[in-house]
């Protein structure tokens, strides 16, 4: 999740839903995850106190276990990966980088900051997600977008390139995907299933 803080107050709190860690994410999260929002806000307020943040932006991670417990993972003072800022712009229409500049600037007025950020979830025009493609085969020769993806109404565009070499190196870390595929649609659970389903498809054959 990401929080934009101005004058010690949370001005926008995004909760990203990772369908499969390292593979797919979408914003805003499904209602199932969004029901944790009040608890997360409490936790972030603790971080604001602990680190004594007046103005700025943090990117903390929490893990939710099956028994309903929330565990703190880490907190970073930087924008998140997996193009979450771009997804936010697609879902809400504001530029999250501009949001950071505003939040970091103590001279930003109360009117400016409230006018800039939309209301979480309610103001979203839909859900924006992306899927990181990693070839499933050991040897590939060409990029071929699966027909069902290409024809899906949620599919928007992709950043995949034709393979430069045929042999696929072993996946070494998160973020070493071959490119992202972007989706946008109205239904969070359809989005979640769709992103999950991409893991079973071959983008490189």
């Amino acid at each position, binding site marked *: 999740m990401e929080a934009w803080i101005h004058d010690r107050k949370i001005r926008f709190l995004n909760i990203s839903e990772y369908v499969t860690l390292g593979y797919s994410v979408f914003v805003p999260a499904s209602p199932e995850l969004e029901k944790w929002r009040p608890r997360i806000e409490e936790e972030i307020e603790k971080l604001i106190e602990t680190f004594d943040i007046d103005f700025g932006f943090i990117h903390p991670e929490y893990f939710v276990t099956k028994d309903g417990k929330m565990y703190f993972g880490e907190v970073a003072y930087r924008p998140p990966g997996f193009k979450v800022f771009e997804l936010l*712009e*697609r879902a809400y229409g504001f*530029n999250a980088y501009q949001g950071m500049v505003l939040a970091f600037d103590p001279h930003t007025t109360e009117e400016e900051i409230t006018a800039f950020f939309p209301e979480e*979830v*309610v103001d*979203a*025009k*839909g859900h924006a997600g992306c899927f990181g493609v990693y070839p499933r085969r050991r040897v590939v020769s060409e990029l071929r977008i699966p027909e*069902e993806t*290409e*024809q*899906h*109404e949620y599919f*928007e*565009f*992709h*950043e995949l390139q*034709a393979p430069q070499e045929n042999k696929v190196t072993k996946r070494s870390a998160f973020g070493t995907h071959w490119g992202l595929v*972007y989706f*946008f*649609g*109205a*239904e*969070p659970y359809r989005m979640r299933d769709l992103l999950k389903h991409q893991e079973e498809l071959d983008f490189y054959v």
Partner: protein
Amino acid sequence: MSEVSPETGPVASSGELADVIESSLEQAVGRLERSRDFAKPAATPQVLELCRRLMMQPGGIERLYLWAPRLDRAGVFLGTDWQDPKTLLAGLVANTFELGDRQTLVIECLSQLRALSVASGSYVRAGFSAEQAHHFLSQVLAHNLSKVFSAGASEAERQNQPEMTRVVNDLLHFLVGHVGYEDILGNLTDEIWRILGQRPIQVGHVKAMITQIAITLAGGDYSLGDARLGADRLISALFGPTKTSLDDLGIPHYRAYLAAMDFNALQQEARGFARAMHDVGLVSDYHAAFLRWLLENERVELIPDALGLSNTGLDSLQCYSKLVYQLIEEAIYPETAQAIYGLAMLLERGVLFIPPIGPGLWRQISLDLSENANAAISAAFGQALPARVFLLAGTISVLGQPLGLGQGNNPTCQSVRAISMWSFNAPDYLLHLIDQVGHFDGMLMHFEGASINSAELPVDLTRAVPIDSDPVSNLLVPHLDRIYLQMGRLCADRGEDPHRWINPEFHGWWVGRGFNIAVDVATGKLHDYDGFLRNFFACYHPLNNGNQLVIHPQPAGLAVTDSSARFVGWHAITILRVALDQSGEMRVYFYNPNNDSGQNWGNGIKVSTQDNGERYGESSLPFNELASRLYIFHDDPLTSNAVWGVAEDELQNVKEMAFSSWAADRIT
């Protein structure tokens, strides 16, 4: 999420899907519009990807057409070669359609749709008029005729982007619907006449275009307007230039007709072929069949008529008739018919009167080609005839048309320029080189006293053997390239431009031993540019050099610029003549090894290939315009005395043209 209604069904119907894609495009274009210039490249790929998807939907091209002006304003072309539409070259589009990657293809399609918006008047763009746009589109269509008129994709396209091939074809048909057939065929006909006006040796692509026109005209009722006459002449020259061949019966039938003709009818045939050949510059397959028939049936007295010879040519033929008949028998077949034009010009040039040429050609007639030479020529020209036939026919063409050589896709212009220069000025030496390489797979030259044998030099694996040039270039260029590179290596550490030493030794004794260069090699900046230009005027301008003509062809280097006058690269040419044209303007006539010499170098400098006193194959520019693009020339230090100084305003004029183009960032 209450305001968003849930959608049903896993896959939308195509119309709905196009709607969905358009709404995504709306978002992506909005983001591009909001981005500052520096950030636009990051926002562009998704726009292009959505454009691609939209085009692939039924009716998608019509939809995208409406987006074109907004996409252009949003900056989708920013920082690309498509940014300024008035500089686009229609001739390059076909290649992009065939070989471009996904993104390049989409940009190309968008560029076409933008041009259509401008042409139709629905989009006004500064610096690109509706007329310009219309002209550009009709040229693009002319260059893509095979796609416009047939559904089949070429192999290159099929391999590359099967699904995009359909989009490109749909796009071209969409454009034709708006531009009209008449303009395309008319344009193409003009283009072919312009190229043929340069009398190229390689005419394969021209024949292919004429064939396209012939098929189109035969298959449909297309109005051609005034261009009809020109198109008909091209088609008849290729497929039926004479009364008897007019019906294009096929060669066996044609020969049967010849057997039944009287002398008058045969003479009419002969003159018909000659007229078509000299008028158009193309030779029909029937012409070759006719010449062979004349030889076989002892009607050689008609050969001068069939070649359309003047007194000079006739003299050559009569002095060397046995050799010429042998050349026809050995080298002239329907597959090599174009060499008939070369043969006629060879006779007209009188080169047979140079003592070594006769024996040199006899040597080549009996030349036993090496395995490598055989393989190289067969790979490029096929197995229909033995490689030695193609090579002999090619040699005839090169000797007859020294300025008809083109470099094909070969990146080294120097080697082709050298072949052309030797054919022009030292044809016996060229025959010697062909014999060396053809038989011994090697070429021996000397550089500063040391011998260089191409057979001992490493083959440059980064360079493919040229297969789209003429047989002589095909054989010699790989060896010439190696020697040229080796000479370059030998003077790599001298800190000056290597052409100073290479040009005289590589080409021949007649290349001026003085060397003039406009730029400092280390910095690339202009160096004593005034002195450079003054010397050029003093050496080459008849009004500044005591009315001295250019005696031998001289190698020179140009800074070639594109149609926006931006620097493209250094290029080798040969200065052939400096003379007044019919309107009294002093022009430099030169040879450019590029395949099509009619080029636009920007700021109004357009290389002319006809109508300004050019001989076939020559390019020309007014003296000052050529001087403004020159960066290397040779002179003779013993005879060049800059006594007749160039006028100060002429010098300023040249400098201004250079400073506003390639030399803009080289001023010191």
